[in-house]
């Protein structure tokens, strides 16, 4: 059996004596969507921030394609083709779409100056694919709607050939139409062999989009299940009561 695309083994992190993530192990295969479920404060965002480089773990190991890696900062994560769409979107509101898309990875001219025209051209290309209605290329992203801002954040994650994509509640701020768009995008990326961690607390959404679901409660892993082997209620039981469905069945 080939090694998983990502394995986070025995991860732990504490903040001021509180164990935000307590010996959690999750993994992800290429072309797979794994949902991370749990209440607010269950530790799912914290777990994933150790993969995206925003936090440094106190304990645990991360393997990518079976190789142990060290991720100290977001730059390291990007070097391993890990891209993240944060719940807050992490956009600089005063800059335009292209500047945000290429932030930290600007295209430069041979003189080492940033090449805004080239970046705008690339941004127009990818937005044409993701959100053809998008036209405000010269406005700061603060002037965009929630859905448009979301598509800038998604474009940023997709543009740089991500192999591992982390989506933290990507549809939280979206209307039904835009949510549908994100769902279609996830299917398309999955088909391209990208592995996706999808953080959400909408059980229904996870049942629809994910292959497997890992449920967390109070910083600990309740369990990981194949979504087609469980019901909505089983997942809810795991989230609320911390009960594993198979123990239940016994």
């Amino acid at each position: 059996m080939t090694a998983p695309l990502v394995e986070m083994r025995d991860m732990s992190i504490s903040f001021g004596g509180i164990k935000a993530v307590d010996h959690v192990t999750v993994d992800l295969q290429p072309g797979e969507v794994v949902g991370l479920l749990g209440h607010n404060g269950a530790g799912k965002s914290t777990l994933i921030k150790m993969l995206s480089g925003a936090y440094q773990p106190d304990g645990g190991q991360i393997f990518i394609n079976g190789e142990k890696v060290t991720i100290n900062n977001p730059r390291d994560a990007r070097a391993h083709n890990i891209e993240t769409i944060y719940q807050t979107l992490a956009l600089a509101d005063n800059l335009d779409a292209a500047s945000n898309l290429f932030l930290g990875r600007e295209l430069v001219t041979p003189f080492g100056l940033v090449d805004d025209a080239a970046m705008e051209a690339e941004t127009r290309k990818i937005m044409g694919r993701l959100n053809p209605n998008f036209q405000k290329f010269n406005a700061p992203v603060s002037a965009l709607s929630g859905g448009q801002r979301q598509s800038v954040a998604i474009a940023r994650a997709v543009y740089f050939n991500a192999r591992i994509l982390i989506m933290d509640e990507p549809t939280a701020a979206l209307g039904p139409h835009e949510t549908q768009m994100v769902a279609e995008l996830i299917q398309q990326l999955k088909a391209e062999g990208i592995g996706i961690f999808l953080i959400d607390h909408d059980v229904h959404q996870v049942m629809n989009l994910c292959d497997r679901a890992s449920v967390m409660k109070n910083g600990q892993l309740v369990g990981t299940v194949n979504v087609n082997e469980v019901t909505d209620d089983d997942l809810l039981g795991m989230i609320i009561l911390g009960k594993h469905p198979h123990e239940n069945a016994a």
Partner: protein
Amino acid sequence: MTDTTSQPIPPQRKSFVQQLELDTRLLGMVGAFIILCIGFDFITEGRFLTPRNIFNLTIQTVSVAIMACGMVFIIVTRHIDLSVGALLATCSAIMAMTQTDILPNMMGLGLGHPLIAPITIVVGIAAGALIGAFHGYLVGYLTIPAFIVTLGGLLVWRNVGWFLTRGQTIGPLDETFMAFGGINGTLGPSLSWIVGGVLTVAAIAAMWNGRRSKASHGFPVKPVWAELTLSAIIASAIMGFIWVLNSYEIPTARLRRMFEARGEVMPEGFTTTYGLPISVLLLIGIAIAMTVLARRTRLGRYIFATGGNPDAAELSGINTRMLTVKIFALMGALCAISAVVASARLANHTNDIGTLDELRVIAAAVIGGTALSGGLGTIHGAILGALIMQSLQSGMAMVGVDAPYQNIVVGVVLVAAVLIDIIYRKRTGDH
């Protein structure tokens, strides 16, 4: 007027100003400045807008304007620097001692050696950058608020300067060094025209280059007539400025002394003009460099991104702590350059040099449209802000307004400018 873009947007009639795609906020500031100048000129019966007064106004503005360029980056990243006036004093003290004592006496170069000025300036800039970097380290790595670090710095560096010189005035400064002060170092008429021509060509070339680059990617560009109008405005502004400075004649008595100093006799009826001061040329150079830095380099992009959303910048892999060190180091270096200009203008280092400059510099940046909430600000705006402040002050002095009223007016203008800015941004939906 036809809309040639292919989008199915209903062809809106754009106004003349909209087609030029000018920053309306900047236009407002330029308008306010022009009204101010004409107003003072009217009250003083034509004494305000003379070549002589405009010349003096520009050389008085340079020192504050140079520091305002650096203050833009500081405020854009949501920090503040209250220590710039004090830092200027320390740099000035270090440079005064270097050029009058350390280099000529201790290093044995002797007074008037041609290497004294360049070495002094390098030493001063290094000192300023080092002190600035230290401030940046305290702010960025040790997370002490910039307000506190630089408030402490204000007291520390003002008095380090005092301690170093034991409170003495040091002078006269080196001849070459004093050329950066303004009236003691000007380019003269022909060289000024050449510099004006080069600047005009460069500005227009940069504009058309930008247009070509946009067009090559198929982006919408301004109509050609709009570009031509802008080019004409730029050309006439630059050449007009040079023309004014070239109209200020050197007084005959002074000219005669200059000839005598060279051991020559002044020909009868000889006249010439000052032209562009070297200090103003220095400011122009710094303004261009800082604008390129802000708009066309990664460092500049990261400064604005960090100001807009520090967390996003961090998550994009930007080392925001190191960035803070760089910004404060740059501010320190600019304080040292301002110290060169300020002390050279006075021909001495004095103990109180740069006092209250921190407030003038912050006011210039803020009047120039730098938002204290971060992420917004321009170099040319800050320089215009400095010019407005200086005009207001000189104009009132010329009119004969009493000193306390002068400061009251400046304070009120600062607050009013920010209020107008807030209202403007609310209306236009800018934030």
